[in-house]
């Protein structure tokens, strides 16, 4: 059979084979003519040809996808492509870059954030520095021992200290005048002298400022109402009155009057001359006042405080004011202080002390 002169039989056989191929593609057809078999093989491949419009439709679909997404692949890969073929695009702040090195958007963002943080740090550092003043402020306070000469407070109707005594008599001490003041006492005063022949005769004295003198008269308690009956009083420890410990009056100690420890007129001692200084055992420091801190105000507040025999502070007053709320802060703190009380001859006595409170900002 010739390729160029097909006969009717071959055309019919080919069509029959094509019919069978289209109807049963998996079964196939078996023909003996090699030319016919070759034509059926081509027909078999033609059966799987894509539809004519498929290729165009798929192309259009792909181009649509490109238009929608604009680009494909990851940014990193696109940058790699940029390096392969220089674009000639001028470098921009957040663009793809040009030249030897690409502009990384992530690097730009990191740099931007870092610079923003640095600026914020610079701006806020001023605030932090102002807050830091709080931490370097320092408040110190201490007891100031007055080593001036032993002088009682100058007042017309009141001096410091006191004392009392007596020799267990049944009647109150008789009215009279105390003996003279002295820094030391070797013999307590007495109205009724029990030992009229002492081995060493010493003038009786009471403890107090030697420059204070009493009118001359019979010895006795100046405030007693007992007249005519000699008596050293109902007190104990020697002396005159209803008190104790070798003084004159109702107090305790070797002074005169209602006070304790010596002197006259009640009140408190000053440190020195046998009176030990109280020792602070609990002394919280004052706080800096907000007003003083803002004004960066510094200085010292001087307080006068009485430390009682119980170790507590009382009668606290400002001797030298500083202002700006710092006085109040100092008073508030010192009122909380606790002391081992001052002593004289081993006995606790109330003393007047000065406390300096220093407010400093560094």
């Amino acid at each position, binding site marked *: 059979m010739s*390729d160029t002169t*097909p006969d009717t039989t*071959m*055309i*019919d056989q*080919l*069509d029959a084979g*094509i019919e069978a191929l*289209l109807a049963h*593609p*998996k079964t196939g057809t078996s023909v003996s003519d090699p*030319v016919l078999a*070759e*034509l059926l093989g*081509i*027909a078999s*491949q*033609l*059966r*799987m*040809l*894509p*539809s*004519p419009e*498929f*290729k165009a439709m*798929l*192309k259009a*679909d*792909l*181009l649509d*996808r*490109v238009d929608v*997404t*604009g*680009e*494909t*692949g*990851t940014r990193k*890969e*696109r940058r*790699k*492509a*940029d390096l*392969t*073929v220089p*674009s000639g695009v001028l470098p921009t702040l957040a663009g793809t870059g040009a030249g030897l090195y690409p502009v990384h958007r992530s690097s730009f963002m990191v740099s931007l954030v870092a610079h923003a943080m640095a600026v914020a740090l610079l701006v806020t550092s001023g605030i932090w520095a102002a807050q830091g003043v709080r931490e370097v402020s320092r408040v110190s306070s201490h007891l100031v021992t007055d080593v001036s000469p032993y002088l009682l407070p100058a007042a017309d109707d009141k001096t410091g200290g006191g004392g009392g005594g007596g020799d267990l008599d049944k009647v109150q001490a008789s009215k009279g005048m105390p003996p003279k003041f002295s820094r030391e006492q070797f013999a307590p005063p007495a109205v009724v002298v029990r030992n009229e022949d002492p081995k060493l005769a010493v003038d009786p004295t009471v403890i107090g400022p030697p420059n204070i003198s009493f009118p001359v008269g019979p010895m006795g308690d100046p405030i007693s109402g007992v007249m005519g009956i000699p008596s050293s009083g109902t007190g104990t420890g020697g002396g005159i009155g209803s008190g104790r410990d070798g003084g004159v009056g109702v107090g305790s100690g070797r002074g005169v009057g209602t006070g304790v420890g010596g002197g006259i007129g009640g009140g408190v001692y000053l440190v020195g001359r046998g009176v030990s200084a109280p020792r602070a055992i609990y002394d919280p420091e004052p706080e800096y006042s907000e007003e003083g801190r803002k004004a960066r105000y510094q200085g010292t507040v001087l307080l006068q405080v009485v430390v009682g025999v119980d170790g507590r502070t009382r009668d606290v007053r400002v001797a030298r004011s500083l202002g700006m709320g710092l006085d109040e802060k100092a008073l508030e703190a010192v009122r909380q202080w606790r002391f081992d009380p001052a002593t004289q001859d081993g006995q606790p006595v109330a003393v007047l002390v000065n406390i300096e409170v220093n407010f400093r900002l560094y």
Partner: protein
Amino acid sequence: MKVLENGTDEQLLVVAAQRDPSRFAELYEGNFERVYAFIARRVASREDAQDLTAEVFHEALRNLSRFEWRGLPFAAWLLGIASHLLADRWRHFARRHEVPAGDLNEPGADPQIETHAMLSQLVDALAPDQRLVVLRRFVEQKSLREIAGELGRSEGAVKQLQFRALQNLRAQMRSRYV
């Protein structure tokens, strides 16, 4: 089927498409028949072949920036994608296995792919009446009577056109490969 002259041309085309995805159309035109032929030989129906071909090119477009030129033609990369998609399809639809998995080992080593890929272009080169008969008969799978009615000819005349079209295709293929 458009064939690039050498690897350098194709490499430049790929790079251009990586930078400007609209250039992917040129890669598509140059490789569509080959990819379709590769898939068509491994599936049972035209619909499956068209679906998978579309998937291959969509996948290629999506991952175009990852393509690295290593001396192999771009078609090899496309056929690799096709192989993976075929394997996935066969895994999911195990009952529809129609080609042994061994066919996937060498996606570019099948000479019949080139023949099949060329066939589409040869059909386009046929005389218009022969081409029309081929498309109606094999693509649309119409009967001779339907085609004869459309063309206004006898069934015998259509049968003759069908025969001559196949003979021309055979002659063209033999002239290229024999």
